[in-house]
């Protein structure tokens, strides 16, 4: 019996070793050929996007280059640049790679996909970029393939950022609408879904200074397009009490436009949101615990409500967050002690939301939460929030946790 077991181990190990040696030998021969072929394939794509190019010379951009930009090549004949890009969406482990051609006029001359392994077909989406300048005013995300197209667009923006920085092409002019869309993302980051798109719904506000008003779908704040002295401003108000104002050049004018900001704060009545969140937070606390809503002036993340807690044991603060997970926003109640360490976490509903997708997924939620208890802003680690197979949900929890610690820091600084 023992002899047979020993023989089995020896034979199987021997076979594995021989196969490994064989594979190493074949790899030794084929790897350089594969590498050369990939390089020539990438080179071929440069001529596809800039067909009239005389030849290409690789450029080394100065400063920090985004990870998406894998190579910048200048046409020696002077017709423009070809940029090789690699972008990863949350849906695919294999990056999509493509080459972007940009003429000296700053307009895209061609796009050549060199690898596309996303689960949904892109159709002719990349070709809609041809003719666009760095403003990318005429393209949007591709309906049904939101995450992949968002990643694609992000990579194109990175390419332009590098080319403009190098002085290779001129910056395109953005429309006011584009600038406002970008300010929505910049000023109210907590309202973004996992693809990075701002999830805001338009609301009606009867105020002569307000051109457009939006409320975050996850209840973290409001965004206003306002007018004063014939100039347009973007004002973001978070439900935790923060307010910021920018003009369309991207300059922070909060201090100068005090009246406008004050008006936006008055229009943003978040009492109904806090009431709803107070009910959710009280479920995470012992009976009889008292919750009082408080404000911080500089938080625009996923924290929708902050309460001080009395009679809640270790908990001194309760923060209700609404980060985006796989699809709709989650509702997470974080309890913090006086030192800012997490003393409790309650998830309203299921943490893994999409029962259709994760039908066989079993997360031990109490063990997961136990791994988060005790973390502070200094000791927090993304690994603690990791949920294998549910990356977007885990990302949402991690974002919320970072926002909670940032809010706690603001609270301690402000008080």
């Amino acid at each position, binding site marked *: 019996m023992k002899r047979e077991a020993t023989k089995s181990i020896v034979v199987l190990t021997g*076979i594995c070793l021989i196969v490994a040696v*064989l594979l190493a030998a074949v790899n030794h021969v084929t790897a350089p050929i594969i590498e050369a072929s990939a390089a020539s394939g990438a080179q071929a794509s440069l001529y596809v996007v800039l067909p009239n190019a005389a030849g290409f010379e690789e450029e080394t951009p100065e400063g920090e280059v985004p990870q998406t930009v894998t190579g910048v090549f200048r046409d020696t004949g002077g017709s423009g640049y070809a940029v090789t890009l690699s972008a990863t969406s949350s849906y695919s482990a294999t990056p999509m790679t493509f080459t972007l051609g940009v003429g000296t006029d700053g307009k895209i001359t061609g796009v050549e996909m060199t690898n596309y392994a996303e689960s949904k077909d892109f159709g002719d989406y990349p070709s809609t970029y041809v003719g666009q300048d760095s403003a990318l005013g005429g393209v949007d995300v591709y309906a049904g393939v939101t995450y992949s197209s968002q990643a694609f667009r992000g990579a194109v923006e990175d390419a332009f950022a590098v080319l403009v920085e190098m002085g290779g092409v001129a910056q395109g002019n953005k429309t006011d609408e584009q600038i406002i869309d970008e300010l929505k993302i910049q000023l109210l980051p907590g309202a973004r879904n996992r693809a990075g798109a701002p999830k805001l719904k338009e609301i009606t506000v009867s105020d002569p200074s307000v051109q457009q008003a939006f409320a975050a779908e996850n209840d973290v704040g409001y965004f206003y397009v306002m007018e004063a002295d014939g100039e347009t401003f973007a004002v973001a108000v978070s439900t935790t009490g923060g307010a910021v104002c920018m003009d369309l050049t991207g300059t922070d004018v909060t201090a100068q436009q005090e009246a406008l900001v004050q008006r936006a704060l008055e229009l943003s009545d978040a009492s109904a949101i806090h009431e709803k969140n107070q009910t959710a937070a009280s479920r995470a606390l012992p009976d009889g615990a008292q919750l009082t809503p408080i404000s911080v002036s500089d938080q625009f993340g996923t924290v929708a409500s902050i309460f001080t807690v009395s009679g809640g044991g270790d908990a001194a603060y309760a923060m209700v967050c609404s980060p985006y997970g796989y699809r709709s926003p989650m509702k997470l109640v974080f309890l913090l002690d006086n030192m800012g360490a997490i003393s409790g976490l309650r998830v309203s509903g299921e943490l893994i939301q999409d029962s259709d997708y994760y039908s066989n997924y079993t997360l031990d939620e109490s063990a997961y939460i136990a791994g988060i208890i005790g973390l502070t802003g200094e000791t927090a680690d993304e690994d603690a929030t990791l949920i294998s197979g549910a990356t977007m949900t885990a990302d949402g929890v991690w974002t919320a946790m970072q926002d909670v610690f940032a809010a706690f820091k603001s609270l301690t600084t402000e008080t």
Partner: protein
Amino acid sequence: MWKNFLKGIIRENPVLVLLLGTCPTLAVTTSVANAFGMGAAATAVLLGSNIVISALRRMIPDKVRIPSYIVIIAGFVTVVEMVMHAFVPDLYEALGVFLSLIVVNCIILGRAEVYASKNRVLDSAVDALGMGVGFTLALFAMASIREIFGSGSWMGFEIPILSDFTIPILVNSPGGFFVFGILIAIVNAVTKRKTGRDFGCAGCPSAAVCGANDGSLQNAAHKDHAAGSGKGPDDTAEEGGK
């Protein structure tokens, strides 16, 4: 030996009679070029793994035979994959994940378990070639029908008139199943007329090898092998049948 080779082509065709390797069959038969590529890759793996497994059949203990076969098969698949990636990158890209999936192709493991593990190297090599050619021909036939009528082309060359009247569903999954079913029916009708065999285990072309005719699906050869004889009854049967 000739009979051994021919059996894989019609009588025991792995795809159309034994219904093995259905997944790559349906996936890659949208074009004849891809079908040839897959057929050639699978044949190479089949030949290599059958030869090695047959050569090592007396050394590999029964208890670890399946893991051993899988390691050997996976090794050959990876070799084929690397070689294809290096020398025929277009075909490598076209076959995509189905190339790697040859590891779990039932034809390969099936021939290793049913034939190569009990027969001499030369016979196993001939069996592998026969099965490989049978697999390739089945893919070729299916791909020809799907490409000609589904895309109006053959081997990538456009066919006049037909290219204006394509049946697009044939290059989609439902069309693949439809053509697959028709081909199985044709082969079944032809072989049944010839041999008069019927459905069920006893009528299976592999019945003699897997032991179904003894009233049990348990492979008697494995029992012998496990007992340490190193040679199952099929050694005799196959050798006698040459």
